[in-house]
């Protein structure tokens, strides 16, 4: 784990779970798997605090535990999962675009709590949705339940591993930690529950109902303490599935920008059909016959079968190999290539990391540098002189740029000896781009960037703490005054407690914090592309 990753993980834990959890997580990240005893010693915290922190981290899948052969339990932090906290807004937004408000809130609740039983999640979401509805209206559980089922069917959420039922003899002591396991085939099975009910508002507006409400509430809470029908079955968000969705989105938009809208729709349809049949990490989707594709095209697209076949042929012939032809049965079977590899790196469509690298160069070093970089990607190896000639850049400038890129590890020098003794005067020195190394370097920079952004944002908030507190107090006073029906003049007086320049300051602060937050989201997009690329390249045999 690099320092940059460690620092970023620390900041994320601290911002979302507080200092105690951050200390524990940090210690685990730096030292590796530890038992509880040593962890307490390392962190200097109270044992109960460490236990609490571990409970939180395990609840959120950020730490896993393992029973050692000697009987102790070791805890291990999952750094790659901690980094995903940065992506939570993107997961929630995606759920909204696919399944509307119930979907959005279900995913949000599951992310906020780590894992939840279905009954609990549905109840919470129904309550939240009810709050936003007009007076008197409530959200029924069935609508939320059906969205839940759809999320499970499309694998966006999955069941957590369950406690295995080991028959125990009365003599043997119970194991120090439960063994959790789940079968692949059970992961998306929704238990048959009849969840009946409606969402509840937090405050009841009707006086008469109050007495009834309270009685109901107590009964409800009494009911809640009984075991719910799906006790022991917990659900969590399936992050890998969301990542697959992001990749599909990138592929579709790459096709759209390279060809046209219709071809991108064809590819989108093919991807949608293969959503759940493509194993994560597979390089191609399952073969689909053109007949099947034709039947599954969305309703708005009435292109003829022949036209579809032409599009498929075009896509298959494209040197970028988005779509491959795998056979002729059923009018021709086709697959979509879903990994990104240097194999198709001639041109530069969107999902590949090269655009990120090129954009970096463009913005940091200028367009000529970017031109040289593109050239090297295309031609693989070039001598100094050749670079100058092909890029049509004067020698001095070209040299300067090459050295800058060399010092940033974006290009490297490859030696090709002419003679067996490797004499320097008789050796070719070629510039080349090592894509993996460059991608890793850029990823490292991204982690650093986000960490810097977060620290800056926290600094800004800290600097203006006094003013923020004051502003909050004024808001609270205004709210309570309005509730008791104060006059406009009185409200005005209170508002003026915050002076003009102070208001300016608050405005500026808000603008800056928004900008930084938006930047963090932006950098995470690049992180996703680079991580996916590195992961898929390493997986290939």
């Amino acid at each position, binding site marked *: 784990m690099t320092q940059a990753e460690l620092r970023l993980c620390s900041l994320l834990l601290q911002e979302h779970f507080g200092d105690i959890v951050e200390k524990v997580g940090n210690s685990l990240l730096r030292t590796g798997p530890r038992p509880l005893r040593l962890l307490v010693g390392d962190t200097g915290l109270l044992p109960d605090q460490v236990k609490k922190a571990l409970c*939180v981290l395990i609840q959120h899948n950020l730490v896993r535990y393992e029973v050692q052969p000697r009987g102790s339990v070791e805890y291990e932090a999952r750094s790659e999962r901690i980094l995903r906290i940065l992506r939570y807004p993107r997961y929630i*937004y995606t759920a909204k675009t696919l399944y509307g408000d119930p979907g959005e809130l279900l995913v949000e609740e599951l992310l906020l709590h*780590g894992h939840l039983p279905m009954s609990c999640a549905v109840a919470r979401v129904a309550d939240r949705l009810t709050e936003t509805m007009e007076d008197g209206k409530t959200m029924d559980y069935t609508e939320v339940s059906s969205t839940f089922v759809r999320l499970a069917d499309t694998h966006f959420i999955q069941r957590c591993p369950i406690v295995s039922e080991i028959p125990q003899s009365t003599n043997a002591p119970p194991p120090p930690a439960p063994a959790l396991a789940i079968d692949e085939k059970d992961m998306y099975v929704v238990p048959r529950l009849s969840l009946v009910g409606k969402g509840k508002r937090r405050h009841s507006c009707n006086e008469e109902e109050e007495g009834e409400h309270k009685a109901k509430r107590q009964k409800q809470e009494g009911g809640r303490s009984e075991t719910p029908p799906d006790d022991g079955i917990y659900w969590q968000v399936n992050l890998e599935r969301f990542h697959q969705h992001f990749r599909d989105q990138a592929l579709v938009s790459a096709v759209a920008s390279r060809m046209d809208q219709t071809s991108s729709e064809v590819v989108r349809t093919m991807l949608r059909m293969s959503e759940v049949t493509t194993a994560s990490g597979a390089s191609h989707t399952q073969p689909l016959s053109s007949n099947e594709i034709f039947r599954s095209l969305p309703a708005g697209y009435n292109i003829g079968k022949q036209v579809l076949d032409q599009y498929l042929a075009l896509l298959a012939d494209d040197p970028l190999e988005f779509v491959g032809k795998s056979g002729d049965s059923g009018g021709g079977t086709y697959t979509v290539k879903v990994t990104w590899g240097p194999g198709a790196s001639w041109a530069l469509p969107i999902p590949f990391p090269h655009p990120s690298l090129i954009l970096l160069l463009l913005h940091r070093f200028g367009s000529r540098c970017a031109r040289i970089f593109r050239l090297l990607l295309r031609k693989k190896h070039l001598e100094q002189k050749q670079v100058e000639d092909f890029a049509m850049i004067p020698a001095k400038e070209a040299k300067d740029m090459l050295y800058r890129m060399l010092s940033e590890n974006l290009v490297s020098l490859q030696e090709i000896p002419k003679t067996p003794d490797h004499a*320097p005067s008789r050796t070719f020195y070629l510039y080349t781009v090592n894509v993996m190394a460059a991608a890793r370097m850029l990823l490292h920079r991204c982690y650093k960037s986000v960490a810097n952004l977060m620290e800056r944002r926290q600094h800004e908030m800290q600097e203006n703490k006094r003013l923020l507190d004051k502003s909050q107090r004024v808001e609270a006073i205004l709210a309570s005054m309005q509730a008791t029906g104060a006059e406009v003049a009185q409200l005005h007086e209170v508002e003026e407690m915050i002076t003009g320049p102070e208001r300016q300051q608050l405005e500026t602060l808000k603008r800056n914090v928004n900008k930084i937050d938006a930047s963090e989201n*932006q950098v995470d997009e690049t992180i996703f592309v680079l991580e996916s690329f590195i992961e898929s390249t390493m997986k290939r045999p």
Partner: protein
Amino acid sequence: LSMAGRGRGRGRGQMTFNVEAVGIGKGDALPPPTLQPSPLFPVLERRAAPLPGGEEGEYMLALKQELRRAMRGLPYFVKPGAPRRDIERYSDKYQLSSPVDSAIDWNPDWKRLPRELKIRVRRLRKGRTTSHVPKKYVALDKEETIKKLESLEKKEEEVTSEEEEEKEEEEEGKEEEEEEYDEEEHEEETDYVLSYFDNGESFGPDSDDNGDEAVY
């Protein structure tokens, strides 16, 4: 053979390879050597491109900030327990519950966690403190009353461990009955709004020096 490289480029930085191949011509001045780490805030040669705006970006920004705010309020945001006071004060009874180190504020599924992590679950009721005087309403034996008083005193101080679990659960059972029973009556034990109660502690350690009212 290896001596062939020596003597070349005399009076300039000497390298192991033929620098001409890399493009440094004869007589070109090399940049001075770097003797310190790069500056903390390097000069920005070009301004960064503007952030992509748009509905999606705006919504995700709002989501991010909302998430941050929400997570601070959840029980998973672990705060350190309040430091122990040296003197027990009357106002302690009316303070809103502060975090307690030896208790966890949510109810995890203990079946899924290693046994060594189990600590007491604290039931949060608004406006109530976790330690309160046992009520006369509940009929307890003398012995149990004494035991309960003792354990209540110890509750705030002792670190709970697994061996004490049973005692705690027994207490909790009783607490549960009492709490459900007098939840309504107890919230209004005083006429004063609890949040207004300020015992002046925040003003420093010498607030007690004026304990005696002026004697006329």
